[in-house]
């Protein structure tokens, strides 16, 4: 748990009383307690249900079967979600509520003539270390669907305005989204992609930008159906980066490939070395996209949760004003980060597309300077 240790360190830096955190580590908590009295009870009996911020934070930012909303009288209240498994014997479906909030692999679920357990939100065949393929509608998948529905709702209604009003100044929702759309088209796409190819890529870039931005924002909403760490999930950023990689390379012109495998204008002896570097670069660029979005959004969630956790770590209601102010500050910052990361991802993707379709007008000077 290298990351777990990092979070401890982070909390320890924030807290002047690092020793308290160490003592919390001993306990084993399942869920965040939302009531102060509960925290006071814990203070009297630390061995029973000590609050563990690492576990809470890790649980929050990871994906889960079932959407935990709140704790009520010590019981977790969560929305059950469908578990969809592709097992050795075919498709199996059941509700995540059948695990009864157990993520330690104790509670065995019988479904489709097979037995499954949930170990830290990973589903195993009971009693084995083998996993079926898991296509469940998890918390993140539900958040993804909510985000997608929201995107469709916003932009279909905006599109309806344009269908009804030709050559009129935008009003209502259209007046809100139009500047953003024009921003993506004119400030992100137009600067990076040659005019000739612009219209081909702008729709994709728009979808990408608003997908990331809206889901980033939904992730900052602290209650259902927001708050899922969707764009801070490596699987999601992996898919988005993979799309950038694929679209870039299937649109790559002869020029683009020549600059990768046989760089013009450099001594022949250097060409194979450059080709190696450029080939690695083809993959490192989208890889960095994947990591950047994942790390930024996840870090934001961790920060906010750490600051909220301060109240429970100190087990005092008096710490809450400071915690709330800091949380407010970081949340505001995260609003900026949400837009900024959407912008950066889209911008770099646009530049990648631009590089793929760009036509180089070479002369000997340009060769001497070297490209890329």
């Amino acid at each position: 748990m290298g990351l777990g240790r990092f979070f401890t360190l982070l909390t320890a830096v924030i807290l002047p009383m690092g020793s308290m955190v160490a003592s919390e580590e001993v306990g084993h908590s399942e869920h965040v307690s939302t009531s102060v009295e509960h925290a006071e009870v814990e203070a009297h009996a630390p061995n029973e249900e000590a609050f563990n911020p690492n576990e809470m934070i890790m649980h929050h930012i990871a994906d889960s079967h079932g959407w935990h909303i709140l704790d009520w009288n010590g019981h977790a209240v969560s929305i059950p979600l469908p578990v969809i498994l592709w097992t050795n014997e075919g498709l199996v479906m059941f509700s995540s509520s059948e695990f009864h909030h157990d993520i330690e692999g104790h509670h065995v679920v019988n479904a489709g003539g097979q037995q499954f357990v949930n170990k830290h939100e990973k589903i195993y065949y009971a009693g084995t270390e083998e996993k079926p393929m898991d296509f469940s509608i998890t918390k993140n998948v539900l958040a993804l669907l909510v985000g997608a529905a929201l995107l469709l709702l916003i932009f279909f209604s905006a599109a309806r305005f344009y269908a009804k009003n030709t050559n009129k100044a935008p009003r209502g929702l259209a007046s809100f989204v139009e500047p953003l759309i024009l921003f993506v088209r004119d400030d992100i796409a137009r600067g990076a992609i040659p005019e000739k190819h612009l219209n081909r890529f702008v729709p994709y870039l728009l979808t990408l930008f608003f997908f990331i931005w809206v889901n980033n924002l939904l992730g900052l909403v602290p209650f259902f159906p927001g708050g899922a760490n969707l764009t801070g999930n490596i699987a999601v950023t992996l898919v988005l980066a993979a799309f950038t990689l694929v679209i870039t390379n299937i649109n790559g012109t002869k020029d683009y490939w020549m600059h990768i495998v046989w760089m013009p204008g450099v001594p022949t002896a250097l060409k194979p070395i450059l080709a190696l570097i450029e080939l690695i670069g083809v993959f490192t660029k989208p890889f960095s996209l994947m990591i950047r979005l994942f790390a930024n959004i996840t870090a934001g969630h961790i920060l906010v949760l750490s600051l909220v956790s301060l109240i429970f770590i100190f087990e005092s209601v008096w710490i809450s004003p400071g915690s709330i102010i800091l949380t407010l500050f970081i949340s505001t910052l995260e609003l900026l980060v949400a837009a900024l990361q959407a912008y950066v991802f889209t911008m770099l993707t646009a530049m990648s597309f631009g590089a793929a379709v760009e036509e180089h007008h070479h002369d000997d000077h340009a060769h001497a300077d070297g490209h890329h």
Partner: protein
Amino acid sequence: MDLVTPGLGLIVWTTLVFLILVFLLGKFAWKPILSAVQAREEAIDQALKQAESARAEMGKLQASNEQLLKQAREEREAIVKEGRAMRDAMVAEAKESASVEAAKILESARTQIHQEKMAAVTELKNQVAQLAVDMAEKILRAELAQPEVAKANIDRDLKDLNLN
């Protein structure tokens, strides 16, 4: 390490949902919105261009108006000038003819005066002559009435004549 291990399920769902979004938004949102925006931009562009050309047209019209006005002003000026010149000429001519007339009148007056004077002089001469003749007649008659005196006078005259 769970955090950085992408889950297969979420990869599949994200790919699926994202592709559907790209398709649906592309077809039913971006395409109509972008084309509408582009159409509007073109319409605005065109309207601006039209306004520009209308302004140029108006400017041209104004310039030609001004030209016309200037021309009219010049024409008026010319007419006024011409009028003034004509008036001056007429006045001058009138003056000229008047002075000539005056001179003529003066001349004729002078001539008449001269003639009148001459007539008067002639008349006076005639009358003087008549008077002289009359007086001479009277004197002669008186002389002739007294022959000794006449004889004495004639003798003296003759003497004078002889002495010469």
